[in-house]
């Protein structure tokens, strides 16, 4: 197995984690035009709930499903309490509302479960796969495979069903959607439920292979914002590609001999790649805006 392939394989957990976060961010952004800063916290709370339920004797499969449902509910609550009341102000105000939600959830989780670091419930049975001189665990591979399933399922839902059409319609033009019989508020709430459930999947699986900590887990979504931005914030496929760029860039740097000893090279390269991609996408936005104007 070549070094490049090995590094790509070892990067899959990073790509999976960033992608599944980015998908949720994009689903919410497409429907409401709000960049959900609370996405990481919406992942963290269900992860704690699942571990708490599992410690209480609830089988992990049941706890996982309940955790994902709680994530959907959390998405709805955040939208109703922190975003919708600010809709008439501006999109920026709604984004500030999600910052408030982030702070509140981190604080409450600290109050309820403590601010220290804990071991989370494992979702997959622990087996080790050898990749070169390194290891991949089933939980890490599971995260990547679940991401593919979530991306495929959500793409089908949004592109092939009336629900997806309603969500896209409400996002593009609320008034036109209303005239077509779609309640835009319900459509937007639906997107937040989906986004919350996606965040929950990410949080539960990510905590299982790292650690549970209110602040740290909530901040794990930050690279996913870069991935979503690279992907254009409007496309699930773009989000996955963005995550592959983010995860792949950081993972492949060790393969480049001349860059190995340069401190901070992974972060620097990532920043440069993100800037380059967004600069190119920026031109397309201008063209789109022109077409919309016409």
């Amino acid at each position, binding site marked *: 197995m070549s070094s490049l392939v090995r590094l790509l394989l070892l990067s899959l957990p990073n790509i999976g984690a960033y992608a599944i976060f980015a998908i949720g961010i994009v689903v919410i952004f497409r429907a409401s035009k709000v960049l959900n800063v609370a996405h990481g916290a919406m992942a963290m709370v269900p992860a704690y709930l699942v571990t708490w339920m599992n410690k209480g004797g609830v089988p992990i499969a049941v706890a996982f499903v309940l955790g994902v449902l709680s994530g959907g509910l959390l998405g709805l609550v955040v939208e109703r309490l922190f975003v919708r009341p*600010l809709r008439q102000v501006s999109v920026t105000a709604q984004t500030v509302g999600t*910052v408030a939600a982030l702070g509140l959830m981190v604080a409450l989780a600290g109050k309820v479960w403590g*601010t220290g*670091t804990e071991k989370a419930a494992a979702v997959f049975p622990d087996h080790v796969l050898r990749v070169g001189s390194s290891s991949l665990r089933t939980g890490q591979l599971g995260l990547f495979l679940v991401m593919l399933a979530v991306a495929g399922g959500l793409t089908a839902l949004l592109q092939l069903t009336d629900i997806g059409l309603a969500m896209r319609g409400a996002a593009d033009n609320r008034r036109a959607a209303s005239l077509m019989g779609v309640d835009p508020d319900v459509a937007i709430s639906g997107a937040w439920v989906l986004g919350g459930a996606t965040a929950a999947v990410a949080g539960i699986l*990510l905590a299982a292979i790292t650690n549970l900590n209110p602040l740290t887990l909530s901040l794990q979504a930050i690279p996913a914002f870069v991935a979503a931005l690279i992907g254009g914030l409007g496309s699930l496929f773009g989000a996955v590609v963005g995550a592959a760029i983010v995860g792949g860039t*950081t993972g492949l740097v060790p393969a480049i001999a001349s860059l190995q000893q340069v401190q901070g090279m992974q972060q620097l390269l990532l920043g440069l790649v993100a800037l380059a991609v967004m600069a190119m996408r920026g031109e397309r936005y201008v063209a789109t805006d022109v077409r919309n104007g016409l």
Partner: protein
Amino acid sequence: MKPGTRTLLAGGAVFAAMSIISVQTPAQQRLAAQQAPSGPEVVREEVVSGPAAAGGAAAGAGGGGAGAAAGAGARKAGAAAGAAPSRFQCAAGQNGGATDKGVSATKIRLASTHVLSGDGSSFLGSSHVGMEAVVSNINSKGGICGRLLDLTLRDDGWQAPLGASFIQNFINDPTGYFALPVVPSSEGLTQAIKSRYIGNGKVPVVGTDGMLKEQYQDPYVWPVATATVSTMRIMAKQAYDSGARQFGIVWDSRYKFGKEGAKAFEQYVKKLPGAHLDANIGIPPGQPSYPDTERFNADCGPAKRCEFVAMLLEPGTAISWINSMGDDSAGRRLGFGSKGTGGAQPLFNAKFARDCGEPCNGMLLWTGYNPPIGEKLNLPGVAKYVNDVKAIDPGADVSNQFLEGAYLGMTVFVEALKRVGPELTRARLKEVMDSLAFQSDLASPLTYGPSRHYANLGAQAFTVRTAAGSFSGFADAGTGFILDPSPGDFPSGG
């Protein structure tokens, strides 16, 4: 509701949420309950033993001035060492009242940042228990010269900007804090030192165990910990003396302790005849996976295993790193040295050893203190540390070396307050600290001077032991305290 009002409400909610993050731990709640009966008004005439107690006497009698500074090994020997004669008595109602900012007749207000959340909480999270144990002890005896210690703690999540901001607020607080003891959250303190909040405010920061180099160079900071740079050189020296020549290191690239420790390790190994650093890898904490293991193993892996590997990581990242490693043909986990593996003080706690299990069997963990392990537990000072901490939090991991460091740091601070006596001012505290010689069972003797704040120069190793694949305890590796081969050398960079 007007749209603008909603925006303001949302912004307000952010600040409200942030303020809630400052959580009162169960230990803090217990401490509050214990202290409640005594209350701030309870004072006794003669409250402390040793020189300060003489305090009164010492202070009243003029103490003996700077020349009476306790000599090395003269534990609690010098009465009011370094302090000028006082007009007041070390007793309630006669202590001079508000002698400086944050000091009143009945109270000394203190503040510190610590780490209850984020990456650092796994090893710094219990430091407050060590501080509270000392405070509780002193306050139960009526305080110092009739003044109770009133300690305010803020959780900064080991985030430099937030920690520095808290410290700036402490310094600018209109009601005033007298000093900052221990300050377990090193990242914020370092930022505050660099921003000159400490120097400009002339606020004493006594007994820090954060180990970063700025703390050893600031005239207002007196650490009790062995610096990270010293520990890394000592680790390399011990490995070299044991025959290791091929070295490797993996370090935390996000936090400062990793960067400066790795730099010191690299510089020292390069000076050792015949030694070379084959792998030098910085990794960020908290990643879902670490492809960097391939890069490490290419230089230090199965083909040419390094003889010594240093791990300068926080515990969660170290576990992820170790779990990302494969095994060699003999079934031994890669990422460890063939002749030894050393872990810096952040890994010296039972949770890390338990989580690591079999792969960490035989790993040496380094500390600048005497932990309650093996015969060290029989030392009276170490036994007292264990008892005092257990009285505050029975479940505390007393082998955590940052907890012990916080206890020692607070003890040194209290000792300095005693030596200053009733006329308590920041200037007098600085004078005392700059001539303090403190000896205890918890560490090697700490001797400070005006331009010498790196008082703890040694570190010793303890071995992680496993049985049937699980952590079974620590054992004294028998190295004793090894002195830093380049004391006071703080390499630039890192």
